[in-house]
């Protein structure tokens, strides 16, 4: 009897083990293809995480955008040199009315991956879907430039009142509520990317959860998606510009651990990675290394309602006491640029780079003498002889902690002020900023679209993103005027003027314009790293034969 039970127990354990092994095996086949032969047109890249959703109207994060912009084409598409040109996307040309309000797009003959023609109706349907309150799209506001869009989304208007209309199969007419030079660029943005109308109708909320619940119009199609593990793209044979696409396959892994990522690159399992901060020294002189500025500014944001930082001179003192050069050279080390203004370089102004038009710097970096002076002045204005405890809020990532400590050190050394650091989870930080539960915070802002306005309108008095609670009527007036100004030269002047005011009041002390370090294997050619939007553009990339 006893012996039997023992056998039963052992049997059970073995059975469990076996079933587990079988269950694990059934699920998925290996997909991390190695590029043993470099002559094959296969590119291996890594995504930092699983794309949260591949529903173009619901996607908001960079990983989803990375995939969607390679499998879908918009009316426009950024060209190799980062420009929007007629014919670079699904619109072969467009007409803009003299008042800058009405855009008429003429679509090229192109097909969905299921063989059906791409029509203007698909666009109209997709854009209205993004605005439909029942879709609950977070990025619906990206379409608020269109007349009637906001009203429909907030339940005050109807879909028919949204001024986007398919005049015929190949002509789409859009009327804006105010001139917006960034609109053409926006039509390449993910929220504006359509799927075929019938696909929306068939899958509803399930759109984009699996490859078969999508239809493709871009350079690639998704051939396989193993959730949390890998995505495989194949060349889209039906793409209108398929002769430009040389890659046959793009494999994405989803590695999150930095060390694993680097080892996969070193072992040729990946052809290009973004280099984690701690590994920059390892690659810096390798010849495979580059870095590129992103359209993102990082700054110390002051709570202008806090007892100390309501004083502009104290804010300036803290901003001037930062040694930005040392910060980017010793701390970030990733090619970031010291920031002495809000709008990063590379964002276009009226005639060339906005940063060049407005001047590179509004103040001097590491201006310790002036900083000390201003602190003294500010404190006497507040009538205090000693600063209360000041806390710097930051994220709880390794990088953020390092950055916060560097700033803390600089303030101690240059101003003699002891600043406390509070590191919290990202969403908790955002919530504390919203509620004004902070003194100052290291925060960043990336461009929504390629125009200085995306960095400046956020500081208007009632803007939800203005968690510095900054308010200056003169500033508000300039921004409000610039927003609707059809005279682009005058608009540019207004934006320059506004930035000047912002940098004089200093609700934020800019620290650095973010760059990103990456390595690419030498046999990978024409892989582009756009300034904003997605991580890569590999429509034109190819593998060079050895």
């Amino acid at each position: 009897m006893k012996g039997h039970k023992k056998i039963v127990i052992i049997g059970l354990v073995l059975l469990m083990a076996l079933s587990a092994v079988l269950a694990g095996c059934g699920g998925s086949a290996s997909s991390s293809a190695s590029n043993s032969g470099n002559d094959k047109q296969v590119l291996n890249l890594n995504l930092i995480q699983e794309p949260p959703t591949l529903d173009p109207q619901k996607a908001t994060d960079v990983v989803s955008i990375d995939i969607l912009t390679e499998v879908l084409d918009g009316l426009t598409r950024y060209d190799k040199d980062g420009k929007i040109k007629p014919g670079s996307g699904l619109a072969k040309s467009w007409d803009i009315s003299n008042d800058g309000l009405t855009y008429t797009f003429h679509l090229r003959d192109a097909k969905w991956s299921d063989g059906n023609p791409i029509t203007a109706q698909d666009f109209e349907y997709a854009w209205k879907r993004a605005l439909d309150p029942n879709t609950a799209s977070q990025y619906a506001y990206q379409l608020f430039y269109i007349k009637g869009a906001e009203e429909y989304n907030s339940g005050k208007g109807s879909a028919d009142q949204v001024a986007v209309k398919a005049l015929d199969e190949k002509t789409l007419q859009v009327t804006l509520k105010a001139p917006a030079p960034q609109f053409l660029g926006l039509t390449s943005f993910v929220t504006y990317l359509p799927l075929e109308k019938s696909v929306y109708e068939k899958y509803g909320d399930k759109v984009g959860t699996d490859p078969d619940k999508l239809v493709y119009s871009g350079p690639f199609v998704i051939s396989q998606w193993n959730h949390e593990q890998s995505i495989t793209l194949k060349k889209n044979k039906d793409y209108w510009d398929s002769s430009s696409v040389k890659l046959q396959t793009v494999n994405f892994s989803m590695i999150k651990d930095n060390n694993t990522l680097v080892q996969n690159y070193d072992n040729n399992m990946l052809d290009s990675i973004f280099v984690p901060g701690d590994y920059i020294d390892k690659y810096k002189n390798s010849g495979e290394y580059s870095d590129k500025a992103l359209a993102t500014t990082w700054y110390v944001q002051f709570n202008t309602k806090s007892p100390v930082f309501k004083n502009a001179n104290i804010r300036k003192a803290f901003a001037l006491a930062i040694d930005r050069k040392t910060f980017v050279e010793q701390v970030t080390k990733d090619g970031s640029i010291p920031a002495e203004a809000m709008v990063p370089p590379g964002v276009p102004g009226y005639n060339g780079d906005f940063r060049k038009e407005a001047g590179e710097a509004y103040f001097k970096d590491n201006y310790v003498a002036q900083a000390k002076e201003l602190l003294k002045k500010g404190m006497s204005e507040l009538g205090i002889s000693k600063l209360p405890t000041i806390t710097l809020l930051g994220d709880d990532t390794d990088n953020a902690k390092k950055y916060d400590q560097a700033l803390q050190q600089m303030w101690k050394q240059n101003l003699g002020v002891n600043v406390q650091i509070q590191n919290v989870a990202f969403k908790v930080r955002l919530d504390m900023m919203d509620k004004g539960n902070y003194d100052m915070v290291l925060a960043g802002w990336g461009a929504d679209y390629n125009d200085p306005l995306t960095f400046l309108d956020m500081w208007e008095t009632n803007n939800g993103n203005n968690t510095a609670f900054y308010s200056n009527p003169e500033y508000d007036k300039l921004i409000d005027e610039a927003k609707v100004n059809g005279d682009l030269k005058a608009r540019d002047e207004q934006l320059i003027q506004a930035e000047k005011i912002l940098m004089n009041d200093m609700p934020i002390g800019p620290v650095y314009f973010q760059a990103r370090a990456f390595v690419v294997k030498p046999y990978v050619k024409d892989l582009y790293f756009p300034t904003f939007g997605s991580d890569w553009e590999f429509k034109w990339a190819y593998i060079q034969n050895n």
Partner: protein
Amino acid sequence: MLNYSLKRFVYMLITLWVIVTLTFFLMHMIPGDPFTSEKKVPEQIRQNMLAKYHLDKPLIVQYGYYLNNLIHGDLGISLKYLNRTVDDIIKQSAPASFQLGIQSIILGVIFGLLFGIIAALKRGGGWDYFSMFLAIIGISVPNFIIATLLQLLLASKLKWLPVSGWGSFKYTILPSIALSFSTLSIISRMMRTSMLDVIGQDYIKTAKAKGLSQFQIIWKHMVRNAIMPVVTVLGPLIAGIVTGTFVIEQIFSIPGLGKFFVQSIYDEDYSMILGTTIFYSVILVVMMFLVDIAYGLIDPRVRLAKGGK
């Protein structure tokens, strides 16, 4: 026995209900919500989103919805991976964690018991010190260091095994070994201590006097008596390991469940937090139940005591 099982089952349900309730209200106390984002969206859009996922209702109503869905086996839609259900995500991720967990437990238990038994029998000898050394390493060195070292040596340098990924059996070897270390250490130490207790007992002397073979004494009398504490810890240990481990899965890039336990809290993905918590709790409670049954099978005295009541 049936009566006993039924009672245990009812207790299990109550335990789960308490866990769900506590988790539900605690997670809503975290500042922010699933749709807190760096770029503020117009208030109306926020309202549309909250309404779509029923987050605009009073908390107690949301709680009611949740319990109702839960009873029907529906864990809801993930608030991060919009459009995907928590049931689907768990179904897709659990097998990898499960396979990895079971393999590492088997490794850990077999070698843990072996080392523990040998260490006790050869107390003070080379084996004893070797197993103690191994156990100290296993307990004091975090498994991510062991994992990274294994990865560097066996995968990156020697290229015997893949660096990371998931698919065939060879991908599971390194993570299973890395994961088994702490199990191995705990079990070998525990087994050694409890074996030493047993070795001094009178019935061992009796067994020897009866002329039983060395193997029979060890297997029937020593191990059987000494294994009880190990079985006790095995329940929670298995539950913890088969539901996925964040760090090991991250290092080897394994599409398991581990990351959801951690990441869902950062994302404030309410349905995912609850889903993973419930999943873990169910497995834990079931494992404890199995351990209870195993007691009875291994040690007749346990059954007698219960039967006597």
